């Protein structure tokens, strides 16, 4: 019974940590936002705060908990003040919490860690859990794997009173559900349809193995949120201060992603490219996102170098000898095997099938109603980069494809929920007669 209470308490604690007060938004001249919107903003800032805190050294480890306690108290204060008189009883928030509770119990009963999670991720997590710091990671295998996901896992496990490792992974569940509920806010319908849409997407995507300690779920959630803010900046009717605010959030999201998984750098660069080619946006706005991101990437390499961690992106996959003989990898056999597994990977991630089908529909029959050019470009670039990861790997190709292609495709899948939303917004009135 204590553990059940702990699970509920853990979800509540995560919710409070991820709350973003409306008062802060008023300060930035951003209008009233929904509770889901504020919590999704809070979760992004929470992850970024944890990224900054992860560099505090072992001697000052208590400082992390002092800062977190202050943030917790401030958020709790605003949560109570701003939502006094039951404003928090928002149906979407209640359903979000129901989803998180249901999946948390699934995790509590099926918490087995995956292969790589046992080999690498949990060790990094335990390092932080036992109050080791980022400088200690030099002693670990796969030291070039970034640490933020493990740090989040460790901190949330540490702040629970039972201190079971899986309690830290409840944050992953929370963030995953939140990202989908947040993107559903883009629908032009009432809360019932938003909940219905979120539920369908979550049920289509959910699998307990997503939370077995692998980090792809965080990347998926980050890029899902990215796609939402990207959509908001390309919308014509957004005001200037809101667009700038979205720019800051996009920067935070992409910066967080590169500290969770190395391949996120490639995907982030593709998404930045999409921002750079936006026709109606000012150069200063584009530069404002690009330059701090590049700075963060450079900073990451400098910090890794300073700590003594290997700075290669995927040390065991792309060594210099392989780079010198790239031509040898580009054979018909390899390319056909990669395409075969790639197709299996697409089929097993159902959202791709739905999204690609709808994108093709809108391409041929959409006319001027929809402009999805950014999504076509990102789909092609993301797929090309994923294919090239595999074609040029010096490792046993089939083994690597079998083990990981589904997961790598899953990482950027969230971006393609947007075309589904656009389709529903444009065509649902005709098809479903929804008003």
């Amino acid at each position, binding site marked *: *019974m204590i*553990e*059940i209470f702990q*699970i509920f308490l853990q979800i509540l604690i995560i919710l409070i940590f991820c709350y973003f007060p409306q008062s802060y938004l008023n300060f930035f001249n951003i209008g009233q936002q929904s509770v889901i919107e504020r919590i999704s903003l809070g979760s992004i800032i929470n992850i970024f705060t944890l990224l900054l805190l992860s560099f505090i050294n072992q001697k000052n480890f208590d400082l992390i908990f002092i800062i977190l306690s202050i943030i917790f108290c401030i958020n709790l204060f605003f949560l109570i003040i701003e939502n006094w008189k039951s404003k928090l009883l928002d*149906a979407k928030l209640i*359903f979000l919490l*129901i*989803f998180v509770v*249901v*999946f948390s*119990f*699934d995790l*509590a*009963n*099926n*918490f*087995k*860690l*995956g*292969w*790589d*999670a*046992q*080999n690498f991720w*949990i*060790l990094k997590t*335990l*390092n932080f859990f*036992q*109050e*080791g710091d980022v400088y*200690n990671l030099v*002693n670990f295998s796969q030291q070039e794997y970034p640490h933020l996901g493990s740090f989040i896992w460790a901190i949330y496990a540490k702040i629970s009173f*039972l201190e*079971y490792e899986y309690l830290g992974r409840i944050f992953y569940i929370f963030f995953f559900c939140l990202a989908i509920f947040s993107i559903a806010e883009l629908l032009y319908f009432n809360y*019932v349809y938003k*909940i*219905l849409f979120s*539920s369908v997407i979550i*049920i289509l995507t*959910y699998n307990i193995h997503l939370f077995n300690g692998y980090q792809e779920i965080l990347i998926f959630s980050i890029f899902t949120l990215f796609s939402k803010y990207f959509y908001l900046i390309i919308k014509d009717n957004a005001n200037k201060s809101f667009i700038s605010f979205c720019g800051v959030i996009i920067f935070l999201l992409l910066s967080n992603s590169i500290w969770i998984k190395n391949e996120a750098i490639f995907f982030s660069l593709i998404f930045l490219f999409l921002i750079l080619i936006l026709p109606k946006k000012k150069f200063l706005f584009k530069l404002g996102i690009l330059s701090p991101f590049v700075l963060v990437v450079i900073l990451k390499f400098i910090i890794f170098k300073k700590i003594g961690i290997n700075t290669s992106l995927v040390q065991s996959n792309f*060594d210099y*000898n392989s780079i010198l003989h790239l031509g040898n990898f580009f054979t018909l056999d390899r390319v056909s095997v990669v395409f075969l597994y790639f197709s299996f990977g697409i089929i097993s991630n159902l959202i791709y099938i739905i999204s690609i089908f709808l994108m093709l529909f809108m391409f041929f029959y959409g006319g001027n109603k929809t402009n999805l050019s950014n999504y076509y470009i990102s789909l092609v670039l993301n797929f090309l980069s994923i294919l090239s990861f595999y074609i040029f790997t010096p490792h046993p190709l089939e083994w690597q494809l079998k083990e990981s292609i589904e997961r790598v495709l899953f990482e950027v899948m969230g971006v393609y929920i947007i075309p589904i939303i656009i389709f529903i917004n444009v065509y649902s009135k005709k098809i479903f007669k929804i008003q």
Partner: protein
Amino acid sequence: MKKKIKYYFFRYFILIVIFFSLAKSANFFKNFYFVNRDDYNSRIKKNYDFCNHESVAFLHFIKSKYKLNKKVEIYDYEINPNPDWVFFNLDNNNIYKNKLILLNYKKTGEIKFSKFKNGLFVGNVNPPYYSNVEKAIFSTNKNIKKINLKITNNIKEESILLLSKNFIFEYPSKEIDLNLNLEKFDIRLGKLFIKVTGEENNLEHIEGITLKLISKYDLNNFKILEKADNCYFLERLS
């Protein structure tokens, strides 16, 4: 009024359907029941095999029974995720020096080599924790009189020679006694190859080679503190 009731009924009906379909698809009631009934340690046994694969449940059992709070050396005789995390300790020197754990232990093991091309054979696994190659057995329908055997371990671009030797048999045979000591080689990583050369034509008929291995750890040298199937918690006899 009737329209309004219908509207609200429809709205809440959708939400209730969502809730129950979600609860059903994620086995909520079953999970809730098990989390309530079984404590964390019991659920570890359910989630991880006791003595199979990474044997995390066995390690947890030992950890709590013997109240181990330092690291213990773990040797898994099969290729599984590394279960070192069960005994994770920030201080690398904080280790029980006289204790060790063997998982999926086998006194003897083997590596099967399949034909890669004529005269060259590639190993299927690189089993760790074997100290000696006892013999090589050839899958062929013809006996061998004279052969040169070269065993290498290829790690990335580097090829490490483990053995290169000529064998001449008094009586034609399909087996060679090797007695190759592996202690000085780390064969956990890389790919093992055997190259056979000789003047006899019957070497072409060799379809595969099996190396018979002997474990690095002899149980006679230890006191068995705990045993479950092929998993052992041992103490070194001084």
